[in-house]
């Protein structure tokens, strides 16, 4: 479904950002991308949604190759990918539901289906009651959940998340991460770049670790040294917010 072979990325001024990157992601898999700042996580994600093309090697995703994808191929591919960022990237001048509707409208979804699709994803992320709220009226965690709802509305086969919890506090982090797990449980692959090693350790998902643009560890190749947590991560809406797992 997703395959990178011997991918390298070089930027004119900053030099080599990625080298010898090869891995595959299977349907419905959950993958963490970790590594220090500047190690190339964002670069890999950008290559996946073809915001950029590799300098060498090939990115293959959902039948589209980085070697010959046309602008139209890329547009069509992105309609099947959900993308989430650290900074949410919501349009400030419209409500949560209008933000989600925007995605459907600009990708030519049939008008009759829009209302029900928006309602469905808002319910899925637990924000049905905040549909008409504007981003400035929502907490960071809620804004990120709106962004996730927007990413889900076209039924993506993969959700690409670049530090989705990077701007969130402990509790919001947990609720957003739980949401990503639920989404993954319903069959959507998730590729998530993160700094939060706690999250990585607490779950037993596959982890690819980068350093200086190279893969230094892939838990699918060597048995994970990470501790396993058998109980699912739960969100407890306790007022103290001091629960630990």
């Amino acid at each position, binding site marked *: 479904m997703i395959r990178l072979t011997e991918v390298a990325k070089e930027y004119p001024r900053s030099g080599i950002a990625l080298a010898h990157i090869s891995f595959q992601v299977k349907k419905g898999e959950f993958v963490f991308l970790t590594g220090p700042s500047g190690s190339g996580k964002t670069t890999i994600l950008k290559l996946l*949604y073809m915001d950029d093309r590799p300098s060498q090697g090939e990115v293959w995703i959902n039948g589209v190759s980085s070697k010959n994808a046309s*602008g*139209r191929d*890329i*547009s*069509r*591919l*992105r*309609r*099947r*990918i959900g*993308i989430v960022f650290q900074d949410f*990237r919501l*349009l400030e*001048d419209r409500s949560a539901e209008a933000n989600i509707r*925007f*995605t459907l*409208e*600009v*990708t*030519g979804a049939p008008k009759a289906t829009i209302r029900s699709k928006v309602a469905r994803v808002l319910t899925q992320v637990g924000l049905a009651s905040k549909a008409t709220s504007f981003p400035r009226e929502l907490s960071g965690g809620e804004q990120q959940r709106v962004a996730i709802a*927007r990413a889900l509305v*076209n039924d993506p086969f993969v959700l690409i998340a670049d530090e989705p919890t990077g701007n969130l506090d402990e509790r919001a982090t947990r609720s957003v991460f739980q949401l990503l797990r639920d989404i993954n449980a319903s069959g959507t692959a998730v590729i998530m770049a993160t700094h939060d090693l706690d999250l990585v350790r607490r779950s037993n998902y596959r982890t690819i670790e980068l350093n200086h643009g190279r893969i230094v560890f892939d838990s699918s190749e060597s048995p994970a040294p990470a501790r396993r947590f058998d109980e699912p991560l739960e969100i407890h809406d306790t007022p103290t917010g001091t629960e630990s797992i």
Partner: protein
Amino acid sequence: MRSAREALTASRRAPLLSALGVVTIAFSLFAFGLFGLVAINIRKALDEVEERVEVRAFLSDSTDIESVAAAMKDIGEFPEVNRVDYVSKDQALERARREMGEFADVFEAGVLPASIEVHLRPGQRSPAVVKAVADKIKTYHFVDDVRYGEEWVEKLYRLRNIATVAGIALGVAFATVAVIIIGATIRMTVLARAKEITIMRLVGATDMFIRLPFLIDGLVKGVLGGLLALLFVWIANRVVNEYFIQTIFFNRELVFVGVVGGALMGVLGSLVSVGRHLRRV
């Protein structure tokens, strides 16, 4: 259509910016239109002056009327010639007195010679043709002198050529300025909507879908600017007519060409600025 609605939404969201855009377009097209108006009026004046280009042959006093009539018939059959008129001594005197007004008494009967006036066909009035006709007429023995204002004919043509070249050069310069201004105003709209464009691209909207509202925006602004400029030029023309000189206005075809020109400039400006921006996002 959705894109049209989007274009209008953009204008509604930034009404001041959009109005400014239309007005600057109108001003550049206004300058263009004013020049055009001057140009067509110069041209019209030239055409009128040119109408009068004629070759005049003065006849010696002894000439008998039969040979003059025969010569006039011959000359009338030259392919370049439209019409040949005979001006008798009396008519010449009368005409001179009428034109000179208070100095009418200066002329005495019989002072002015009889002449024939040769009017040339339109398109046969270039200096070379005029000279050729004059040379042919000179060969009649009873023709004393032929006048056709060599210098004057050549000057007229030079003036006309200069006007044409200046018109094209200034027109192109103004059009370039208009395209740049339209490009800049649309660029401001593009930048104001940069975040929307980024998101559209991320969620998989096609380039054409993203571009279309801006193209429509440019088109609408170009047409509106063109119409506004037309109104300005029309008012300016009325004022000139009222207080200064008689002028003609554009005909319907030229008005249409002007508005289409505005639309083209709008679309071109938007293509340039949106194309550049999209490649960088």
